[in-house]
């Protein structure tokens, strides 16, 4: 019974859905955008989420977490996605916390994880160095020194980069080559000197930043995991991120589709409901079908994390690519089927389009993941 939710999970889903609907409508994102909020997320909302344990949902109990499992996290991401909730869930709870849970030393864990669980610490994974997701080609360098590392280079489009307390930086250790083995993850306090942060204003109104490390001097204890297998750790964390993001996107596209469907049943032209036009009916039926496939791939990928399956990487790529393509299509249909009103900023549906393209390229476009699926399957 890996593809359906347990009773406990259904309870979580119900409460998450209700909470998000009440506390985090799309108007909250609109407000953050219009007010050019300094943080880019609602601290009040985040404190509610933290109270419910969401910040520590993936953190072991000994570090004050809930240890609820990855499917629970997926459920929350999906519900948060429905209203385009801006929060540190992806940056901190998925990518950040899991980097430390999977790769951190005891000291790193006990320093950081309880603070994450209590909502007092924001983490940001710094991977990409250009506009496309490309973890196979990392050139930010950590030069080994007597006491640790000297970090140089620029990371781009770092999620929540301008509010992070710590960066987790994917860097190439100077004396090591090879695309995987040469990589390490380094835990970098934002207060370390030599860090320059440029907050970015993206179309989706969500947080992103370019972060430059200019001769940033780090102690040896900055290393997450071992020097030699940082690539494996990074890839595992990225897959968790892809799956969680796919879950978020699944929620977003479902809400967009529900909005379309409601409009088809309400809007009249030529004296008829537009939902009675067969061409639109067929397109709606195809969207429905695509969403059903997305539900399955996301659920399978979430399960694979919980069972630590050998298929994890493959299912992560399957989930991200499938969800990318369906959301792409639905986000376009969302505007087209709404007609003129869909083009107005006043109406919420445009936010779903804007979020779509950024979510699509984040952590890998469809063509990236189709190529990876091919590599993983040996063809």
């Amino acid at each position: 019974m890996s593809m359906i939710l347990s009773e406990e999970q259904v309870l979580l889903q119900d409460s998450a859905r209700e909470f998000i609907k009440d506390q985090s409508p799309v108007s909250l994102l609109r407000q953050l955008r219009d007010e050019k909020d300094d943080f880019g997320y609602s601290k009040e909302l985040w404190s509610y989420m933290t109270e419910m344990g969401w910040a520590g949902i993936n953190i072991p109990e000994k570090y004050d977490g809930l240890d609820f499992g990855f499917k629970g996290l997926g459920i929350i991401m999906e519900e948060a996605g429905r209203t385009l909730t801006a929060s540190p869930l992806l940056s901190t709870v998925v990518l950040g916390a899991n980097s430390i849970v999977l790769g951190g030393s005891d000291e790193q864990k006990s320093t950081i994880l309880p603070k994450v669980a209590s909502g007092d610490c924001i983490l940001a994974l710094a991977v990409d160095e250009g506009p496309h997701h490309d973890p196979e080609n990392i050139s930010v360098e950590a030069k080994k020194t007597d006491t640790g590392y000297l970090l140089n280079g620029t990371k781009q489009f770092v999620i929540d980069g301008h509010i992070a307390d710590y960066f987790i930086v994917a860097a190439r250790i100077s004396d090591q080559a090879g695309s995987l083995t040469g990589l390490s993850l380094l835990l970098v306090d934002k207060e370390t000197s030599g860090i320059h942060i440029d907050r970015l204003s993206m179309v989706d109104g969500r947080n992103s930043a370019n972060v430059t490390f200019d001769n940033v001097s780090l102690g040896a204890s900055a290393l997450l995991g071992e020097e030699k297998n940082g690539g494996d750790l990074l890839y595992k964390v990225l897959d968790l991120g892809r799956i969680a993001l796919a879950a978020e996107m699944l929620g977003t596209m479902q809400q967009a589709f529900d909005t379309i469907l409601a409009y088809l049943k309400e809007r009249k032209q030529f004296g008829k409901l537009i939902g009675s036009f067969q061409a639109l009916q067929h397109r709606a039926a195809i969207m429905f079908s695509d969403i059903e496939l997305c539900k399955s791939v996301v659920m399978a990928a979430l399960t694979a994390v919980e069972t630590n399956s050998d298929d994890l990487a493959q299912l992560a790529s399957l989930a991200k690519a499938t969800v990318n393509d369906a959301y792409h299509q639905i986000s376009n249909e969302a505007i087209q089927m709404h007609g003129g009103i869909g083009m107005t900023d006043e109406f919420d549906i445009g936010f779903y389009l804007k979020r779509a393209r950024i979510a699509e390229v984040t952590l890998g476009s469809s063509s990236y993941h189709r190529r990876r699926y091919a590599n993983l399957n040996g063809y």
Partner: protein
Amino acid sequence: MTDLNEFQQEVRTWLEVNCPASMRTPMVADEVTIGGRDTTFKNPDTKLWLERMGNKGWTAPTWPKKYGGGGLSPQETNILKQELKRIKARVPMISFGLWMIGPVLLEYGTEEQKQEHLPKIVRGEISWCQGYSEPGYGSDLAGLQTRAVEDGEDYIINGQKVWTSYADKCDWIYALVRTNTEVKHGGITMILFDMASTGVSTRPIKLISGLSSFCETFFDDVRVPKKNVVGEVNDGWAVSNRLLQFERENISADVFASDEVFDVRKIAKDYCSGSDGKVSDPLVRDSLSKILMKDHALKLTFKRVMEGTKAGSSTGSTSSIFKFIGAELNKDRYEFAIDAMGQQGMGWEGKAFTPYQLDVAHEWLRSKANSIEGGTTEINLNVIAKRVLGLRDS
């Protein structure tokens, strides 16, 4: 649990003894049987295997023993299936009797009908075909015109059916006929009769892909006793809808199984590989991923629905997508194959092509019917839009 373990041991032992070795090899096209009165068997093991499974009732594991079935519980049936799969046993026969009219008779048949027909279906003694579609009435099945007029204790049937699979080889037919011309859906009756009856004739249909199992079937004053009506007179539409459910489930299952005999990845590797053994053209590789990932997503959805059904949740809306996605995907699979194979995948016959290449070309053509037979993609989309999404014709 112990009972089930015992049952499993029993099945395993029985299969070890009774499933002939050649029946554990992949199916060969000309060794497929549909059973029936006049069947001949190219491989004598096929006959043996069918007889043994039929006598045991395991061709219809869930049917009651009194009608020749296996009388097994769902759990036992599952174990039987697992064990058959474990030894890669061939399916004993292809049978519309087992898959379609049998289940319908169990629900709607008279005691007399069950006694007469079900045991012969189980043992493969009588083969069945389906008289539904008519020329001019494909998607609009309920428009059918074949007339059944009362004449004492009989009906006299006149008309024409089309797309009757194996009509030229089957012993009996279950047919939809019009018993009332005043109303459309409410004037249809399901009736059974022997294909050897006077006035029945058939003509095989040649498809664009070559010879097929489909026939046109003609009824010219065919006399059928009234007791052969299934369910109530004029209630055939409800009966047939129940039956079409069984058909759809079987077609979906077929489509799912198809990539086991037809591996697009192998074709890509055989025709488009570089020196590293990987597909060298990135465009071909991307297309292949699209197909395999869609297939993967569909299989996971199938799994999700199965688990949901077991857990007692309603899965009708999700399973409404299987038929058309499976059909479109299978067409895409063959388009990919012939694209990868180039002109070598476009042979009709002759020694310049391997049998496999010729198969691909013919099956590519045959695949075009996937989105037509058993409900067109358009009808599937209509159904999803209306029944699942609640969009109405206003």
